[in-house]
């Protein structure tokens, strides 16, 4: 007795995928997407005797210590767009902000620490079909007589389905 194997052609493999949806794990039907849409901008300021500048998740800038805030129309919170590829997700989201001590802004020689990241909303129970916005604030530590200049950096935001 002889057996012959039928060759599996690429076309028939594609057809098998289309006709076997029960092999697809349910989670991949709810993809989560994330993109940054606005910088976290601490604005302009004079270092003075040093202190800290906080930008809240609502974009309100306040200072502590001897820092002098200057008029800064561009100052404000970072914003991210969370999406679910057009489908309303019904799984809640875990938002992971950078830990203290991991993020710094630098002007090439000097740097300033960015800590105490906060986000709004603090928890996300589901993603609406049209997506939603996550706002992130933080606090910048300014040394006394911090060297003048433009300081820049970046930070990651991670989201996971629970």
């Amino acid at each position: 007795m002889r057996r012959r194997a039928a060759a599996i052609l690429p076309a028939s493999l594609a057809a098998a995928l289309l006709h076997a949806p029960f092999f697809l794990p349910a989670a991949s039907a709810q993809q989560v997407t994330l993109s940054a849409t606005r910088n976290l901008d601490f604005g302009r300021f004079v270092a003075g005797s040093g202190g800290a500048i906080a930008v809240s998740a609502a974009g309100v800038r306040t200072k502590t210590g001897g820092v002098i805030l200057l008029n800064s129309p561009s100052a404000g919170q970072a914003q991210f767009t969370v999406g679910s590829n057009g489908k309303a997700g019904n799984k809640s989201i875990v938002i992971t902000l950078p830990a203290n001590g991991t993020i710094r802004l630098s002007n090439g020689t000097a740097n300033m620490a960015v800590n105490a990241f906060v986000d709004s909303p603090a928890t996300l129970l589901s993603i609406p079909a049209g997506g939603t916005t996550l706002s992130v604030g933080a606090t910048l530590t300014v040394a006394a007589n911090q060297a003048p200049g433009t300081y820049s950096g970046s930070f990651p935001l991670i989201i996971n389905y629970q």
Partner: protein
Amino acid sequence: MNQPTFFSFRSLQIALAVLACCGTGNALAASATAASNGTVVTPIAVAKTSDLAFGKFAASATAGSVTLSPNGARTFTGGVVAAGGTSTAAKFDVTGQAGLTYAITLGGSTQLTDGTSTMAFAPISDTSASAITTGNVSTGTLTGGAQSIYVGGVLTVGANQVANTYTGTVTATVDYN
């Protein structure tokens, strides 16, 4: 005897499942990076480099005035006449972050006094040491990180104003705006 290789249907099922869940990447988490920035600005500072001096003049039975322009030039009205001496406008040097603008507020004496008699004083100022005889500057720009403010003024001299040395102060306050 040849043993042909063939795929059983069961292993094809497993292969399809692996492709389906991993072929489109990890869809259960996402990350994005946002930029962050802040600008430390050089503090603004102001220092006086010249005092305001109206110089010497003679009063008379007719009241009048002495006007000192930001360039130091004097003009007289009424019964007041020049009597020598040097007249100079006050000069304040402002330093700070190049290119930024700032507000200028003048203050100090509203009259000069010899301890007893007084003469009303009102400043005249600009940032170019011009020959203006009225007006004050309220903002400046730190081109190259520096700018100077020149302050003259108008002194109102009374009829038979008592001859003496009259003094006062003029202050300049600057703030980034």
